[in-house]
Structure formats: structure tokens, C-alpha cells
């Protein structure tokens, strides 16, 4: 299982100041059972509407964790709660605790900007900036206080594009608009953009839903490579994908409560092979075997 203390230390491509991930041993803490992100009794509301209730999970270091479940069960909501992207939705509110490296990110003293530079995000629809490919990647580093020279920046951009397996395809057109790329390339550009800011964790919300099978495959390979250096949490509707890439999978479900609200909840969070071969809960089994309402 992925909880093994693999201590492959990653050196960032250049002399980038590294806000989140640091050279360190993850062994000690993993042994104590601490995850990179932990939630405890987390509820998320949109106004008065409770979208997800009572989520308690622990995401491990350097592992791909998958969130699956029927549409509307609150997967995206949970994911956004993990790096405070929900702050952008005025009505959204989070109860309970979300801890990152042990610190509660909803503590009033915490700066959401600091959270997001450590916990990057890739969205369902590719959303490159309407700027050149180069600037798409360089901007994130710049606003995060990149101190290197121009050539350092070029190295950083190249490194990120290489990691995202996009370099060979775009190396001759770095000045062209990011929007000129194909959908799959755009999504890899967004991933490159996210890793160029040297995050610690990457959240991905259905990153392949807009892509064809070949592009999907490339992104999956990419995730498997990235997991050496990053902790990844991915939302997917594709159970094969979850089975192929993730170490642990969480199944969410949604139920009508007594007041008629559709509130999502966590059914189980198990190692992926277990969840797909011998699910602990009946609902999980129904869902993965396609017998789901």
C-alpha cells in the first residue's frame, strides 16, 4: 500500500523557493498516522443548504486518493473545501475541521492565499489564461515571489512542462496563446501551471472529463509520475480511472434527509483494491456494480 514511508526526496527543478513541499522525511509522521490533509466532522453549507455532512477522512502523503460517487453527492464541494476555494462562493460555509500538516485551515488566523499556494488545483474544464503558454506557467511562480533570474524562470517553465509531459509538443510555440492548444494539451498546461508553483498537494476535479481516451491516458500516466513528488486528490466519475491510478478511494453518496434536503456523506474510504473487490458497505457495492438507482 501507499502508506509505505517512501522518502524519495524531490528536488525542485531550480532554485525555486518552495513554500509547500520541502525536502523532508515523511516517514515519521506517516508512522504516527498523520495525513497531509485531514478532515474531521466537516459539514459544508451553501446558505442554509447542507451539501455534505460529517466528513472525516485522512489523505496520505505521496498518494493518489480518488473521490467517487453519484452526481450531486458533493465531491467537488468536498474538494474545494480542502483548499478554501469555496471562499469564492459567497454563500458557502464550512463547519468542522480541515487540517493541513496539522494546522486547521479554517482557523481565523489562517490566510487562504497561503493555503492555495500550497494546495494547488486543476479544474474539470481546462482553464488556461488567455496568455502565452510561457506566461501561463510563469505567472503563478511570479506572484508566488519567484526570485530567480530570467533563465531560471525559463528552466522552471521547461521543467514544469516536462513534468506535465507537454514540453515536446509546445517547445517551439511557447509564445502562442494557451487557448490555441487542444483540450488535452490545455489540461496538461493547467497541470504544469499548478506544479510550477511548487505545491505540496494537487487537487483535481474530474480532470479528464473533457478529454478523449488517449489524452486521458496521458494524464493518468502523468498523475502516476507526479505522485512521487506530490500528494494528489482526484474527483472522478470513471471508476476504471480510480482503480487504475489511486491508492485509496472514497465513495460518497447522497440521501434525502427528513426535511427533503439532498445531503452528501462519506460512505467509505478504503484502499482502492479493497473498495473495488470487497466493499465494506452495501451502497458501495451497488454503485460499483452499476446497480445504483
Amino acid at each position, binding site marked *: 500500500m501507499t502508506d509505505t514511508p517512501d522518502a524519495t526526496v524531490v528536488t525542485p527543478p531550480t532554485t525555486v523557493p518552495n*513554500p509547500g513541499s520541502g525536502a523532508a522525511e515523511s516517514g515519521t509522521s*506517516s508512522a504516527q498516522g498523520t495525513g497531509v490533509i485531514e478532515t474531521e466532522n466537516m459539514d459544508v453549507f451553501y446558505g442554509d443548504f447542507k451539501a455534505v455532512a460529517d466528513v472525516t477522512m485522512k489523505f496520505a502523503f505521496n498518494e493518489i486518493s480518488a473521490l467517487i460517487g453519484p452526481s450531486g453527492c458533493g465531491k467537488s464541494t468536498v474538494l474545494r473545501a480542502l483548499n478554501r476555494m469555496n471562499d469564492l462562493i459567497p454563500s458557502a460555509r464550512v463547519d468542522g475541521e480541515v487540517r493541513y500538516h496539522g*494546522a486547521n485551515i479554517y*482557523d481565523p488566523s489562517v490566510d487562504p492565499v497561503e493555503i492555495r499556494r500550497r494546495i494547488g488545483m486543476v479544474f474539470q474544464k481546462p482553464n488556461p489564461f488567455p496568455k502565452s503558454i510561457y506566461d501561463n506557467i510563469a505567472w503563478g511562480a511570479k506572484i508566488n515571489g519567484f526570485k530567480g533570474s530570467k533563465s531560471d524562470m525559463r528552466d522552471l517553465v521547461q521543467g514544469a512542462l516536462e513534468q506535465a509531459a507537454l514540453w515536446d509538443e509546445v517547445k517551439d510555440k511557447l509564445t502562442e496563446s494557451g487557448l490555441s492548444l487542444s483540450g488535452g494539451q490545455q489540461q496538461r498546461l493547467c497541470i504544469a501551471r499548478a506544479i510550477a508553483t511548487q505545491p505540496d498537494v494537487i487537487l483535481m476535479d474530474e480532470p479528464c472529463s473533457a478529454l478523449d481516451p488517449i489524452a486521458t491516458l496521458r494524464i493518468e500516466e502523468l498523475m502516476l509520475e507526479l505522485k512521487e513528488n506530490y500528494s494528489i486528490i482526484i474527483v472522478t466519475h470513471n471508476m476504471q480511472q480510480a482503480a487504475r491510478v489511486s491508492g485509496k478511494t472514497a465513495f460518497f453518496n447522497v440521501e434525502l434527509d427528513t426535511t427533503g434536503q439532498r445531503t452528501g456523506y462519506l460512505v467509505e474510504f478504503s484502499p482502492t483494491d479493497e473498495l473495488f473487490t470487497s466493499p465494506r458497505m452495501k451502497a458501495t457495492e451497488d454503485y460499483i456494480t452499476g446497480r445504483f438507482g
Partner: protein
Amino acid sequence: MSTERGVHDADMARQLARKPRRFERLIVGSLFIAGAISIAITIGILWELGSESLLFFLDDDVTLGKFFFSTEWSPQAGSFGIWPLILGTMLITVIALLVAIPVGLSAAIYLSEYASPRVRNFLKPVLEILVGIPTVVFGFFALTFMTPLLRSIFGSQVGFFNVLSAGIVVGLLIVPLVSSLAEDAMAAVPDSLRQASYGLGASRLETSLRVVVPAALSGIAAGVVVAMSRAVGETMVVTLASGASPRNFSLADDSLFGYILSPFEGAQTMTGYIAITASGDISYDTIDYNSIFAIGLTLFVITLGLNSLSRRIVKRFRQEYE
């Protein structure tokens, strides 16, 4: 290097702590001030209209009662009854709406329900150009084209300054407003409603007149009210084309209606009075100076009322489709 991965530490809490971000706060602060300037403008308007009007009403020649109930406006003679000016404004507004509602609505219905893209692409810019023409040019047009035209049609009973010419031209001026607001309202009618109507065998006309227009009615009404407020506040056309003498009348007069409703004679409006009075060398703290603010306050209240009425209509309209 800072964090040790997975260290359950107070150090992480410290790293995540809020940064002062002074520059950002300064920016947001200035942006807020930019937004708040609009409040200062409103306060400025209310203060200036209010205080000068107060001075006006404190004058010995003027009483509130006379202002609101007298039917004579002749500052030289010391009589300040606002009705003649309101009457002039109303006459012109009504004529303007008589022109603008049929033309503007037809344009809107035609553009949104019938017109081919080619016709649309021709007509939309025409309406946009109309919006861009300054009102003083419309005033010139009223005086040099519309008035002579009316005189050649109706003869010399049409005065050199007359309400009809001003009203028609103000109507032309607000046509684009009526049509664009009405078009917006009709565009907001869900297509499913049109399809349902066509599906029942209704023709295009029946669909647009019996389904789309009624469904968009409140939006259209709101547009008409906004256009009305625009006509009430219009200044240059009425100043140039409708003359500088208020239509004083007396309620006891037999020929009351013939006189006050005659479209062929001039009539000063509220805006016309303000513009004419201010264009001479007006000295501060005279009764004339103060009187324009009292008129301005009345004008402000009327247009504000019309605009809020229209917004209330629109709000109700939105609820219907939710």
C-alpha cells in the same frame, strides 16, 4: 527551507498565518472609496437641491401652498405656482410617448420576432446612431425642420415655438430607449413559450402579439416608464423648440382645456425654465437663483419616482419566471 513534511507543528500554523498585505488592503480601500464617491454625489445633489429650495420657500413671496396650488408662474410678478411648468412638461411627455411607444414597440417586435439577421444588422446600428446624437442637435432639428413642417401642414396657427414640434422630436429621441428595453424584455421570454405557441398552430403574429408581448409586458412597461422619465428630464429640445413662456391658466376659465391642451402653442417646461434662467447671468441668492433649485427638486423627485417604479415592475417580472 521551512516545513518538514507531516510535522504536526505549530510551525505550519505560523506559516499559514495571515500576511498583512498592506498594498492589497490599500488598493481595496481605494476601490471602495471610488465606489463610495457615488454616495457623495447623491448627498451633494440632495443637499444642494434641499438647501436652496429651503431658501426659496423661506422667501416672503413664496409659500408652499402657492407653489403647489397656484396656476401661475411669473417670477417677475412674484407668483410662483409650479403647475404651468408641470403642465408643459406633461404635454410634451405625452406627445413624445405617443410617438415613441408605437414606433419603439414596433421596432422591438419587428427586430426580435421577424427581422432577418441582415435587416437586424442594418436597423440596430441606425437605432444606436440615434442614441448617440446629442440632444442639442435634436433641438436644432426641431426648430429648423419640424416646426416649419408643422407650419406648412397646419398653417400659421402653429406658433414659432410650439409644444407639438418639441414633443415629436423628444419622441424620436426616446424611440431607441423604448425599443431596446422592450427588446430586452422580449428576449427574456423563454423560447419554450414561443415553441409551445407555434406547436399549437399559432402564426408568427399571433405568437408575438398574444404570447410574447403579454409575457414581456411588465418588462415593456418598465421600459416605457424609463423612457418617460427621460422625456421629463429632457432639456435642450424643449428649451429651443417650445419657448420660454409658461402656460399660465386659471381654473375658473371657460376655455381652460382648449388653452392648456393646445399643442400648437409654446409652453415652458420645468427643465426649460431652469436652463433659460441659468443661461442669463444669474446672481447667487436671488429668488430666481433659488427658484431653479425648487424646480430641480421637483424634477428630481418625479424622475426618481419613475425610475424606482420601473425597477419595481422589473423585479416583479423576474419573479414570474423563477
